[in-house]
């Protein structure tokens, strides 16, 4: 799998490169600004781009804008955005930029390399990787929602993991329950939220996220 990295801090760029290489991913290019990212995406045609939100020259939301531009330029290019903080506003914009192949994670998540690489692979495969903090805030925002309140605590856990973009297998492993139990929970959740059930993991995630963003 070929990856392009855009990160302006040398230490982090270097660390990310080495970590991904250690997990068998190929680094096609590692750049430090948005313009170079767009060029690298065109020339290298990577499987996934990993982009820091703050990039030169403005050090504001350059990374988000570069990610959106890259996805416009190469439609459905999987992009994983990393940031020191997560904002729902940006999560929304990223999710709206195409169907799937989007990740938005806190930089801290790289501390757990296995999980992080898993998220990279998921995004590269057209899936979703939303940071647990984004999901926690989405759920907090829905506390007044009667349908969400009707969920059992276990169902809420499953909902949160599902919204992060995890598959049934991954949810089962995480909660130490069987896959069948997860399937039962998801069916119940979709029933309570009145959503169309779908076998397609990615479509399922997007439906849940769209519902929570209401």
């Amino acid at each position, binding site marked *: 799998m070929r990856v392009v990295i855009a990160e302006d801090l040398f230490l982090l760029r270097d660390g990310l490169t080495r970590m991904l290489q250690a997990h068998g991913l190929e680094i096609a290019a590692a750049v430090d600004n948005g313009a170079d990212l767009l060029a690298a995406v065109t020339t290298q045609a990577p499987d996934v781009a990993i982009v820091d939100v703050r990039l030169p020259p403005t050090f504001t939301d350059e990374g988000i804008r570069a990610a959106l*531009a890259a996805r416009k330029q190469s439609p459905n290019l999987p992009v994983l955005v990393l940031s020191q903080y997560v904002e*729902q*506003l940006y999560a929304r914009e990223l999710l709206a930029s195409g169907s799937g192949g989007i990740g938005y994670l806190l930089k801290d998540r790289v501390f757990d390399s296995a999980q992080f690489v898993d998220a990279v692979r998921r995004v590269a495969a057209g899936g979703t990787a939303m940071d647990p903090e984004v999901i926690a805030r989405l759920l907090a*925002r829905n506390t007044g929602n009667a349908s969400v309140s009707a969920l059992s605590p276990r169902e809420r856990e499953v909902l949160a993991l599902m919204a992060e973009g995890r598959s049934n297998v991954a949810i089962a492993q995480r909660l130490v329950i069987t896959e069948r139990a997860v399937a039962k929970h998801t069916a119940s959740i979709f029933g309570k939220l009145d959503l169309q059930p779908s076998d397609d993991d990615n479509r399922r995630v997007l439906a849940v996220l769209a519902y929570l963003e209401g």
Partner: protein
Amino acid sequence: MVARSRPRLTPAAGLAAAFRGLAFAGLMLAGVGLLVVLFASVILIALGVGILVVGNGMGPAKRTLLALLILGAGLGIGRFFVPSVLVALRRLANLTRRLAGEWCGVPVAEPYRSAPAAEGTELNYAARLRWLLGDVATWRDLLWVTVNALVGWILAIASMALAVTGVVLFLIPVVSHVVPPAAFPGNTKPTLAVLGLAMVATAVLAAPWLLRGYGLLASSMLAPAGKAELALRVRHLSETRTEALDTGAAEIRRIERDLHDGAQARLVAMGMTLDAAGQIIDSNPDAARALLYEARDASVKALAELRALVRGIHPPVLADRGLAAAIQALALDTPLRIHVASDLNGRPPAPIESAAYFAVTELLANVTKHAEARETWIDIRHTDGMLRIGVTDNGHGGADPARGTGLRGIERRLASFDGVLAISSPPGGPTAVTMEIPCELSLPKTSSS
């Protein structure tokens, strides 16, 4: 308060202006009432003293008694009514100032000195009188009431008087047969009708201008005099400067404490954990690994704390995209249905942006905590060199700035930028808070990517 550059000239506006003129005449009468009480006190005292000194042919005992009675009445009014009357005069003058802004398009600032500091206690009589009479603005108010009673009101009611004359003397005789046509040489029904209509039309067209003139006349006496205005400004600036410095210092102390108790402490603990791991890494690799993971988790927590701290100092979206987007992001994080409308095409100066953002944060926190609102509307716009933010909720109202420290705090912070906060929150709702901060917008940053 919207300062219009020209009065609108429509029949409806003219008619409204004519009626507003009548209302001003009503205020004039109230002013005369207050004036009578004030003069009664002065005249009675003078009369009492006069009789006592000069006498008027009565017997000495009778004379003294009468003089003391009159003097007593004058002093009594002075003792018990004059301060209240002076305060009522201020209220009346303030009402006139407000209406001059709203109706005449001539905003008039309040010129009074604030009451001498007396924490929580009522001022005694002498201090109160000294405060009221020592203020040049009180005397200018009195001048206004007098001028208004002599000539001002004529300006106020001129348009209505003209219109009524036109209708009563010329139009009614034409359409009704009850009253015979007004008698002047050579009058016919058509001339009467034309004259009457012309008078009404002139009155309606002139009314807004006459009202504007009345506003200017009021402003010439009710607005702060040059020196008084400067003094007010200096006092306002030094008060808000002190408050801004205090707030800034308190903020820095809070940040220092948060860093000291939070991230710094966690880093120290991490260092110690890593050291412990290093010492046992050969003898007990499993325990060392557990310690390393512990250190990693501590670093995650330290980062989370730093993140929360940064959010409290300068929220990322505010830095990235400015006020409207930051408030939009805030709305997404609040469990209320919030509608944000904005027409900013540019960015206010960073300190104002930040103050406005935290003011909105505070207001939304209030709405969430107290109002039991289902929906909130936030409106951000910039007009006439003024950043205006309105926050309206459909909760149960009854917000009182005097009770909560939150609203007071916002008011104080906005005051550093000459900003003001107005709140309307009748019991039963809705609550509408409007903030206004004078500022210019910088041009939108051109996208560099």
